[in-house]
């Protein structure tokens, strides 16, 4: 015993020094003799610092080094806006905006006589029961808070202001009393807990909708009391025969579901321009049942509907769907080819056919997996695409038949109000809702390793996402967006956000000059004319 006590300190000190030295020597030898990495051969050990920094860089940038308004796709400030609205039901900020006003951007034209709260056309006749967090005490390393049940105003549109899809064109039009809904997110892309929390949260808030994504209607989409727009992609998941053709029988079955209020045909969407690929090992019994495919078998879906390669055929298909289903049918597009779009609108006018709504997915949109080249450069951003579509529909006299749903990083009330002013009737949000159920922007949606259980089907990781907790954050977030829209409407001097128009919006360039949306579109036309003149020049030798 005495000897052990005598030598123990020396042994501890010796091993504390010797063990790291031995490990360093091992790494040094290993790095110096490997042939794969030049930097490690030349600078063993030091070169490893580079890999480590690369690995933890995103986290360091997100939490330490990036400013509040830096970081893409969403800045820390934008992220916090969503979290605070969802968790604390709180949207107030202190000490003013941190937006860089020297940059160019859109601004709402505020009225010198804004509307009073009592002058707004809002329907808060039914309060909503939800939960919010209250902070009791916040320290450096901890935050003590508790959850409280509250009654809150839902900020619905009045019945007469409700946005109606398919009004006068189908047997069961879809009436919507809020202008913000969930963009297409399939079960599979998001896990069952995330989809369930979203469905229940949207159901609590009411007056909104959930787009199923092209993966079909899962039980998780149906878990809450919310309306669904079923998306149909080229893979025809959920509405296909075993041979891969469109199944009218399966479609009718879906159309008969009470919660399904409309259908959306997805055309050449940016993320899927490459076509879909679903690995066999991900096709579980449940996924197979939902998508009407064989379990365990890889499914490749084309990047467009094989049988609908022209607007005439597509519109015929939409007509048939509307006739058989009795519910509105829309189209989801990414705008890039303006000439092609004009051709589509011309055909809509000439044939009297076409979709009940068009969902315009901005090039900056996205949720899960795609390729960098498609994400970065395919399709126009929403605030460019939206007024083009709106203007074309107006020019051809078909705007009254079609509602426009806009999406693309429209995650805060001001951004949504700008889109509404530019011509959108409704707005879709995907990533904002992902954040409301706990997404921390880890950027690993395509790896099935989402650390917070949102974009993963891994049951262990999903265990972290508690539906009974997150569903209230979804509800609070969507209701706060609607409240914010009424705030902006009041500031613009109109009684409801449905009344926001182009005239309520102005653009300021980097020199401080302002222009209206109308004049910007006019500028585009002038530029196009110039381009056509150039095209008429003789070909360069």
């Amino acid at each position, binding site marked *: 015993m005495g000897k052990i006590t005598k030598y123990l300190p020396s042994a501890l000190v010796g091993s504390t020094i010797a063990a790291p030295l031995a490990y360093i020597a091992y790494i040094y030898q290993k790095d110096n003799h490997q042939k794969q990495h030049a930097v490690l051969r030349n600078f063993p050990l030091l070169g490893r610092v580079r890999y480590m920094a690369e690995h933890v860089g995103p986290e360091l940038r997100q939490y330490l080094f990036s400013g509040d308004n830096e970081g893409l796709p969403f800045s820390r400030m934008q992220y916090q806006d969503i979290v605070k609205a969802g968790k604390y039901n709180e949207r107030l900020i202190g000490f003013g905006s941190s937006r860089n006003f020297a940059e160019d951007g859109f601004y709402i034209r505020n009225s010198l006589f804004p509307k*009073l*709260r*009592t*002058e*707004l*056309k*809002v*329907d*808060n*006749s039914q*309060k909503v*029961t939800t939960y919010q967090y209250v902070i009791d005490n916040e320290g450096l390393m901890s935050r003590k808070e508790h959850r*409280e*049940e*509250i*009654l*809150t105003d839902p900020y619905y549109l*009045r019945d007469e202001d409700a946005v109606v899809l398919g009004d006068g064109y189908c047997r069961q039009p879809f009436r919507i009393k809020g202008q913000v809904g969930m963009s297409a997110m399939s079960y599979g892309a998001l896990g069952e807990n995330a989809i369930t929390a979203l469905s229940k949260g949207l159901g609590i808030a009411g007056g909104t909708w959930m787009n199923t994504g092209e993966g079909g209607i899962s039980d998780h989409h149906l878990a809450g009391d919310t309306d669904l727009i079923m998306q149909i992609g080229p893979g025809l998941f959920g509405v296909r025969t075993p041979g891969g053709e469109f199944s009218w029988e399966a479609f009718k079955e879906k159309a008969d579901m009470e919660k399904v209020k409309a259908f959306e045909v997805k055309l050449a969407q940016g993320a899927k321009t490459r076509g879909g690929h679903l690995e066999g090992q991900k096709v579980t019994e449940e996924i197979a049942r939902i998508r009407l495919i064989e379990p365990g078998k890889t499914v490749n879906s084309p990047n467009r509907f094989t049988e609908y390669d022209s607007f005439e055929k597509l519109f015929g298909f939409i007509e048939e769907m509307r006739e058989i289903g009795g519910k509105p049918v829309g189209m989801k597009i990414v705008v890039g080819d303006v000439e092609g779009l004009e051709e589509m609108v011309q055909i809509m006018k000439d044939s009297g056919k076409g979709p009940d709504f068009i969902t315009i997915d901005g090039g900056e949109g996205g949720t899960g997996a795609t390729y960098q080249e498609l994400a970065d450069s395919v399709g126009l951003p929403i605030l460019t695409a939206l007024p083009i579509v709106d203007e074309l529909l107006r020019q051809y006299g078909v705007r009254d038949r079609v509602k426009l749903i806009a999406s693309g990083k429209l995650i805060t009330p001001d951004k949504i109000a700008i889109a509404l002013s530019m011509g959108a009737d409704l707005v879709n949000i995907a990533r904002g809702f992902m954040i409301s159920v706990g997404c921390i922007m880890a950027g690993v949606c395509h790896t099935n390793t989402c650390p917070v259980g949102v974009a993963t089907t891994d049951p262990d990781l999903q265990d972290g996402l508690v539906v009974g907790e997150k569903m209230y954050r979804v509800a609070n977030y969507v209701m706060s967006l609607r409240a914010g829209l009424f705030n902006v409407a009041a500031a613009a001097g109109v*009684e409801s956000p449905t009344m926001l128009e182009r005239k309520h919006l102005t653009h300021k360039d980097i020199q401080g000059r302002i222009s209206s949306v109308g004049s910007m579109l006019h500028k585009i036309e002038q530029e196009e004319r110039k381009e056509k003149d150039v095209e008429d020049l003789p070909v360069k030798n």
Partner: protein
Amino acid sequence: MKVFVFGGGGEVGEYLLRKLAAENHEAITIAETENRAEELKMIGASRVYVSKDYDFIEAISGCEAIIYVAGANPTAGENRNVLVDKEAVARAMEEARKQGIERVVYLSPARVDESAKSQETGDKKIPEELIKQDVFTYTIVYSSRGVHKPGKGMIDIITSPSKKVMEIPYEDVAAVLVESLTNKATYNKTIKVIAGNTSIENALKNI
């Protein structure tokens, strides 16, 4: 019962209109704009008069009772710039007297957990003296701080001011006012209400 609600558009007022409708009373109130009037009808008011200058004389005609949620005054709503307009209460009581309305339920703007000095700020308590006068069968209600939480239907009546800051759902405050309307045990009494453990009906019955 045909009840005129002063302050139907306020935080307690909205719950009051809903509660009165649920109890088959006929609730009448005033709004500043057409849009707000429509919303109050959706909530439960059977009739809403639109008046920017708070002209309630026509509206009050034929009513059998008044519920006055203090704070309602000619400059109520978003333009509010006084705590309680005692002149407005005086005018309301004068008109009620003329029209033979006897029953008045008044929610004091002074809270049970306020200090005596704070309760006097802005002459908050003066209207109570007007209501206690002569012809009216009154009930004056003091409550603790109201919050937008679901009502539990459970309260306690306290006899002395409480210094402890407490919350009570607006929904429960509204329920107390509506229950007081016809509960004879509350007639000509000032009651102090906090969130508690007794059902509203029983708590008021046993005053």
